[in-house]
């Protein structure tokens, strides 16, 4: 990459300091891009703690942010995502852009009291988002 950058520098016209900052701006990580956000709730907020014994707190997390035009490998997005983005930009803007959604989850163990007073420990699938993607 250093060699390529040198060539670029060579090839670039004589730049004023302002152009340089413009030039480096393309390497700054975009601010509002799709990423995982923390969110933690307690079952007492939902008034469910009467029958959910454990855990007391639950961190489902969530995904939010813009999906960049060139997804590719950075998000592990399927090829269809880029096609959808192409449709949105070139063919039909009413087709939504790809969305920032969870890509991977982890399970959650929950201890609850059943209506008949019995107690159940159960492991539920896909209860905590751990990774986001655009699709």
């Amino acid at each position, binding site marked *: 990459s250093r060699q390529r950058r040198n060539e670029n520098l060579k090839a670039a016209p004589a730049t004023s300091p302002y152009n340089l900052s413009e030039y480096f701006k393309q390497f700054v990580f975009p601010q509002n891009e799709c990423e995982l956000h923390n969110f933690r709730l307690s079952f007492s907020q939902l008034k469910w703690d009467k*029958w959910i014994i*454990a855990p007391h*707190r639950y961190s489902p997390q969530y995904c939010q942010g813009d999906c960049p035009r060139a997804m590719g490998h950075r998000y592990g997005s399927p090829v269809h995502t880029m096609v959808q983005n192409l449709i949105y930009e070139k063919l039909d803007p009413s087709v939504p852009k790809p969305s920032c959604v969870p890509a991977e989850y982890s*399970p959650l163990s*929950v*201890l609850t009291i059943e209506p008949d007073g*019995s*107690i159940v420990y*159960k492991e539920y699938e896909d209860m905590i988002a751990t990774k986001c993607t655009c699709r």
Partner: protein
Amino acid sequence: PHSRGHGGLDKALAFLEAPEGAASELNPVLRLPQGDRQGFAPLPPLLKVLSDQGPRSWDSEVPRLQPDSRALRYMKRLYKMSATKEGIPKAHKGHLYNTVRLFTPCLECRHLHRDLVKGDVHSVDLLFNLDRVTALEHLLKSVLLYSFDTSVPTSSSITFICHLSIKEHDSASQVCPSISHSLAFSLHFEVRKRKWVEIDVTSFLQPLIATNRRNIHMAVNFTCLMGDPQRSTKLENPVNVTLVPPSLLLYLNDTSEQAYHGWNSLRHGTKSLVRDRQRNSPLVDPLGDTGKGNSQGKRA
């Protein structure tokens, strides 16, 4: 091009909740044939309340019966052993079950035969209602859970030799239990180390649950002698040991989509075919323990 993905699923779920008449209004594709509807397991309460975001609050179905405090303490301990503080199932557990249900008996007739010479006989008639066990929850192991309330200071220990026999009540003859299933074995354990004793009754319960029996009515005789078999068995009862009627613990493998199956596939490193095979062979020890605990019960 208008496939709805999860929307369809929501509709199907809503269909489960809709009053009977509403079914006919739904798209025939969504309506399940009568028989199939039985196959839909009722949603576990957590998912029911998550999917039931409408104005009808879950409060209307808040559990009316409070569980036994002992049972609750036991299950909290099991939870701590099985999940991290964040509530994520612990990876190294290596067990097959993803559901554990604890039932306390709802019917009890205690026959104490005090006049017996040998030790203390604890006879109870127990009725367990297992309606909450769904069709997709397959039994891996079932245990009768005894808790010992003793006045023995924890620093000292008492050795018990106990015998247990279980007879299943034949619902046809109400007067006396028939002996359609019976199990008898002896236990040797020290109270100091543990306040709970798990007695493996899988071989007794498996055929009943496999035939979809949900009301298990059993007569349990539990005879205990105190003392050490090597030295001498004290016949009198130096301490006051009260036997609380046992709870029933079921270790289950829930094969529904909502339940977590991760460790099974991770553990075996291959896709679901092997897992299916594993799931159907209860011979694999669901607890993955190496024979610790009451090995005798296990052998029995």
